[in-house]
């Protein structure tokens, strides 16, 4: 399953502060969409609105419309918890649950929600998710060991396994490789490319090479100055954004002549 996400003039606020202004875009299913832009331009804020995670911060709210396969994510009777079950998220720093084994970490989406499953089912889900996250061969002999004993790159893939184990429609990645070394980064990038076969993948990255390597679509965000809202400057096919951007700002940023 994979869903099309549609943003219609979306504004994101933290209390009275407008963090992201007037974003309209369509995120295609079965593709990788990269959000790039300088620090503080609202990429992370925007990606967190896609699964209503920004609401965790008191005072954060959204105006405008966010549709997922035509369904309003911010509709009046929508339960944010249900949204998050369909939209998985991977964070900047690997954050496996320290009290759980590798296997329990993979199954945490089920276990933390008290859903019951047979042992065979649990094993099947664990293997499928770990294989999907390219981690099975490395950990299959130590599934009962704590997840925090893995290396940083392995932990991040464990977090991806945890996210895909619950079979979401969309996977959001907020700078998933910024805390990892180049080899682990390459592993995550390969994985992201595999994941787009099944899921809608949205990735926030500071690494422009990464965006150009793996993404199909690229959105460039920029901010006019501190205290001002971030805006979507250009959104197009990745090749177009990196080789022949329409906007001057985009060209300055992707060519490294920024600021």
């Amino acid at each position, binding site marked *: 399953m994979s869903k099309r996400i549609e943003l219609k003039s979306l504004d994101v606020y933290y209390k009275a502060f407008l963090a992201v202004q007037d974003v309209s875009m369509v995120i295609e299913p079965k593709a990788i969409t990269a959000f790039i832009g300088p620090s503080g331009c609202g990429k992370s804020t925007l990606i967190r609105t896609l699964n209503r995670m920004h609401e965790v911060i008191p005072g954060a709210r959204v105006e405008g419309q966010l549709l997922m396969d035509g369904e309003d994510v911010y509709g009046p009777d929508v339960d944010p918890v249900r949204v998050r079950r369909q939209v998985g998220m991977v964070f900047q720093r690997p954050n496996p649950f*320290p009290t759980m084994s590798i296997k329990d970490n993979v199954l945490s989406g089920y276990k933390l929600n008290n859903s019951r499953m047979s042992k065979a089912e649990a094993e099947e889900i664990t293997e499928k998710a770990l294989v999907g996250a390219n981690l099975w061969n490395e950990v299959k002999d130590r599934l009962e060991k704590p997840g925090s004993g893995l290396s940083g790159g392995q932990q991040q893939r464990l977090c991806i396994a945890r996210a895909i184990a619950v079979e979401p429609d969309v996977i959001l990645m907020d700078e998933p490789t910024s805390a990892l070394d180049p080899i682990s980064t390459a592993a995550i990038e390969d994985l992201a490319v595999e994941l787009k076969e099944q899921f809608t993948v949205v990735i926030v990255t500071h690494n422009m090479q990464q965006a150009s390597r793996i993404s199909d679509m690229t959105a460039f965000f920029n901010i006019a100055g501190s205290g001002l809202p971030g805006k979507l400057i250009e959104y197009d096919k990745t090749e177009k954004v990196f080789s022949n951007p329409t906007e001057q700002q985009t060209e300055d940023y992707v060519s490294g002549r920024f600021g």
Partner: protein
Amino acid sequence: MTTQLNSSFRGTQDLPKWLSPTLLVSFFLASFGLQVLIASDSDSAEINFIPVAIFGLVGFTVAIYVISRIIEGVRKATDRLVTIMVSTAFSLALIPLLSLAYTVVTKGVARFDAEFFTFSMRNIVGEGGGALHAIIGTVEITGIATLISVPIGIMAAIYLVEYGRGTIARLVTFFVDVMTGVPSIVAGLFAYALFVIFFGPGVRMGLGGAIALSLLMIPVVIRATEEMLKIVPNELREAAYALGVPKWLTVLKVVLPTSLAGIATGIMIAIARVIGETAPLLLIAGFTASMNYNPLNERMMTLPVFVYTSYANQGVDMQAYLDRAWAGALTLMLIVMVLNLVARLISKYFSPKG
């Protein structure tokens, strides 16, 4: 060229390793000898050890500083000086602790026998008897106090850290701070006044003691739990939310297990804090010489009160009463020590691994 580079890294000469301890010992010996001389000169034959220590230490410090300054240079001399000051401060802090442990153990072992743990004081005048009734009372009253305080304390802390916003949370925090400062006798008076409403004046009950103790325990548990919940990384909460886990399940299954070890340690410290309380128990639990297993009825003895009454109301065979008091104190100290060990084991086995 290489030799030049090397020489610029080489410092001044170091003092030999044996010099510092040798100097220390010799200065203390010299100081001791001086005191002996003074003592033999005057009429008092006794040697006062405090000047021995002071003169020895000051002499050693001056000597090692001067020698080090000449041979090793300013930086290392300062290092030696500060090391001596820090070590002295540490030893000073340790002296009362060791002295207390030594006194309690040496005086307590006299009656630290089987009879002490199998007998109450019923019909006992003079020698013999034991503190079983007090041990049972302490275990029951502290146990009930823990059963009352731990759920209230943990839930209040969860409210403050995970849910509380605005005025109510600030009020709760404020009153927890105020409760931390409530004198224990006030807690005892409160429990007594509360029970008088239901049972009339002159009421004595183990449960009342437990209420008084839990009043003292709750703020400690709240504070400890609050600190532990605060250090659970927010990333773990977000990871759970992103998996579509509702907030209450996140708290129950992610936040609490992650901080369990710290919370358990905090609870043990809170127990250790109230187990030695005397004043409130004297008021509401009263004192008795007989066994009483029922905290809902009549007076109940506890170890601190046992120690207090044995010492305050000495009988004919004075030494027997004193010995029992010290043995009671030793028992109390051992219970606190065991609780601390348990807390350490808990934090060792439950803390997140990896």
